[in-house]
């Protein structure tokens, strides 16, 4: 039997949970950033699954979801570039990528 929509949603949700756990549990800022990417990709997978599930009257998938994923990939690429530049600037001034060492704003 072929996989159903729920299978894809389960995989997507589990991937999101893994990324979520990584953001909450890890203390290395670069790995937190990677886990953010993982969460974005999990959302992409569920969007594409919904797009494929809703076959329109012309017999093709609903491409609105895929266009949305296209934009998410673009924005994520821009976000990675800016975020890594910020991390490099942070490393220059503090010599650390550990979030517990960066606590100037901590109450």
């Amino acid at each position, binding site marked *: 039997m*072929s*996989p*159903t*929509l*729920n*299978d*894809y*949603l389960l*995989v997507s*949700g*589990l*991937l*999101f*949970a*893994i*990324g*979520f*756990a990584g953001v*909450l*549990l*890890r*203390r*290395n800022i*670069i*790995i937190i950033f*990677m*886990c953010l*990417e*993982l969460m974005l*990709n999990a959302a*992409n*997978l569920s969007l*594409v699954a919904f*797009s*494929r*599930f809703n*076959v329109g009257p012309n*017999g*093709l*998938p609903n*491409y609105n979801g*895929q*266009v949305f994923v*296209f*934009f998410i*990939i673009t*924005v*994520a*690429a*821009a976000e*990675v*570039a*800016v975020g*890594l*530049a*910020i991390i*490099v*600037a942070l490393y220059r001034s503090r010599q650390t*990528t*550990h979030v517990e060492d960066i606590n100037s704003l901590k109450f």
Partner: protein
Amino acid sequence: MFSPLFWFFAALTLAFGIGVVVNRNPVASALCLVISFMGLAALLVGLDAYLLAVLQVLVYAGAVMVLFLFIIMLLDLRAEARRKFNWLGIAGGGLVALGFVGELVFVISHNPAGNQKFPPLQARVEFEGFVHTGPIESADLAPPETTILLPKTSETAKLGAGEKVVEIVPVAGGKIDDVREIGREIFTNYNYPLQIVGVLLLVSTVGVIILSRRELK
């Protein structure tokens, strides 16, 4: 998608996703993330989203991960030294993540609409000029792009000028031209967001250059 392949790539994606979280060495984490993205691209192929699968590999596994590895190399990050565990933080984070998983399983198990299979794809094909409706083997009577998609009776008809035949035919997954469909959407309905994304990329480029100057003023 053939089910064993789906489960294989799903397991690959999830296992290497866990690898990203549990690895102490940032380089190993980044390489795990590359494999996880590859598995995700395979899942997208299974959903007939070929353009996005290729973009996933090119943009994420290519560009973004090269950037990550480059920064890890630039900062010369080693495996994280073991620190005092913040048990409260770990328990809290794990609890929230597990709560999310529980909620996910609850929602999905109460979603009978999602238990249906993915509907088959069809294509709307317009023919002009010669229409050959025979089997594919006798394709020499008409241009090849009009012969493939109409496997009915074996006869050739000449259509008049301006006359069209429109057929809804089932189409195999690999024959979907999703590049054209997504391109049409992007340049018609989503043209304005596309321009905004272009500006966003420009702004992020300028921002990165300013952020990585030697002295931040």
